[in-house]
């Protein structure tokens, strides 16, 4: 493939498409094809975000929100993995739970946020609990999927090398299932993020989600768009990092990243 300045042709086209889309939005807003009270130009969003970051007024909220996401996703990944392994070992339980898993994400789990608040008060705990609830099922599903796809010949290889159960799990089964587990992690991040932000919209006392809702009700469009840009940038960056990493592993193993 031809490449220029370290980026492939496809990469340049993609960049052009993205820049073009943003540019088009900018032009439409500036020429008032789009009502500036509805959508502000991207450059103003960026400026607003820059001012917010420089003023430092959002630091505490950002820490709260992104910290909650990080904690929730970590717990969800570990918990989902452990539950996935346990459910995999009990095929009957699994068959019963399967339809439940398949529908789990159709109902927004964060509607239970008020229940959590009633139990834990208005701290970060309820937000984290909702994030865990949202992320862990994706991880359970991914774990089950990964364990299903461990080739049976690997257990035979393990026995030829006279490996114990722990070593077999750590050195053969885990790496064999790793791509699927990684998909689970990516989904847990996505769902955890959505759940935390949505909980903050509903009635959290602080956090970036709360601030967006507040800015909206306050008709403070600039602040609202600045904060939205912040969330989108952070989420996209995290996802892109995970995606690139996944693709690198996937290419090595001759598989398309999911």
């Amino acid at each position, binding site marked *: 493939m031809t490449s220029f300045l370290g980026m492939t042709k496809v990469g340049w086209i993609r960049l052009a498409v993205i820049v073009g889309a943003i540019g088009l939005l900018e032009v439409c807003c500036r020429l008032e094809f789009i009502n500036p009270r509805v959508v502000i130009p991207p450059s103003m969003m960026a400026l607003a975000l820059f001012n917010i970051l420089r003023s430092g007024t959002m630091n505490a909220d950002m820490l709260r929100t992104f910290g909650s996401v990080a904690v929730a996703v970590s717990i969800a990944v570990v918990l989902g993995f452990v539950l996935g392994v346990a459910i995999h070992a009990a095929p009957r339980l699994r068959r019963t739970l399967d339809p439940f898993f398949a529908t789990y994400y159709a*109902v927004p789990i964060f509607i239970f946020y008020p*229940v959590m608040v009633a139990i834990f008060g208005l701290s970060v705990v309820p937000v984290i609990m909702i994030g865990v609830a949202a992320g862990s099922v994706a991880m359970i599903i991914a774990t089950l999927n990964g364990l299903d796809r461990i080739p049976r010949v690997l257990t035979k290889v393990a026995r030829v090398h006279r490996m114990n159960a722990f070593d077999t799990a750590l050195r053969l089964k885990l790496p064999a299932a790793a791509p699927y587990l990684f998909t689970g992690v990516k989904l847990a991040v996505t769902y955890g993020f959505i759940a935390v932000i949505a909980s903050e919209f509903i009635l959290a006392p602080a956090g970036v989600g709360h601030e967006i809702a507040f800015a909206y009700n306050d008709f403070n469009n600039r602040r609202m768009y600045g904060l939205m840009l912040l969330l989108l940038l952070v989420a996209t960056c995290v996802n892109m990092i995970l995606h690139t990493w996944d693709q690198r592993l996937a290419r090595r193993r001759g598989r398309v990243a999911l």
Partner: protein
Amino acid sequence: MTATRRIADLLILAAAFLAFWYGLNAVVGSTALPGPGPTLSYLANFVGTTRFLESLVSTLTSFAYALLLAYAIGLSLGVWLGAHHLSGAVGEPILVAIYSMPKITLYPVVLLIFGLGISGKVAFGALHGILPVALLSMNAIRNVPPVYLKAARTMNLSRWQVIATVLFPATLPEIVSGLRIGLTTTLLGVVLGEMFASKRGLGFLMINAISTVQPEEMLTVAIVLFTFAASANGLLLWMEHRLHHRV
């Protein structure tokens, strides 16, 4: 024999779930989480009321429109990106990025653009549904083994015959998976739209129940939504199984 055992398993699971619910209710109290008894009797009364029925109709209508949009746009996008190599290579990472974006942050934009009417929640629902449909149908087309197309060429089929007799059946199972996942995410999108950008529908009932502290009503609506999603999903899952196991 196995059927009765499966039903027994389901009953055991339901009993365990109810026991858990009772336990949680006993620990946190009825204002936080009402028990199964009061919730279910509330449900029995509530599903007959016009308020519920109007909301249900409103949600189903928006859902139908949103699903239609999501399927139409998602499939066209998926077929285009799957069939045209360069577009696929350029577009896929962009789609993946948008797919994993928390689109819920965009609700104020939807509100500002569409106001509180039905179009806002339809747009929000379609926004959630398009991407999984597009991504899965794109992969379905890419994964068609080239040997199928070669075999079709040796049989002198026209372009449309190839599409109708080879490409379509070969991609159908995966496309149906995409449609199924798209269905759940579209429903989620519609409900989110109703919660934050609407004054009607089950989502609105739910957010209203939350802010006026009526946990029975919130749970009732959640149960209805879950049941609806589970049945629709089950139907498509059944179709998917049949398609995967045909030979």
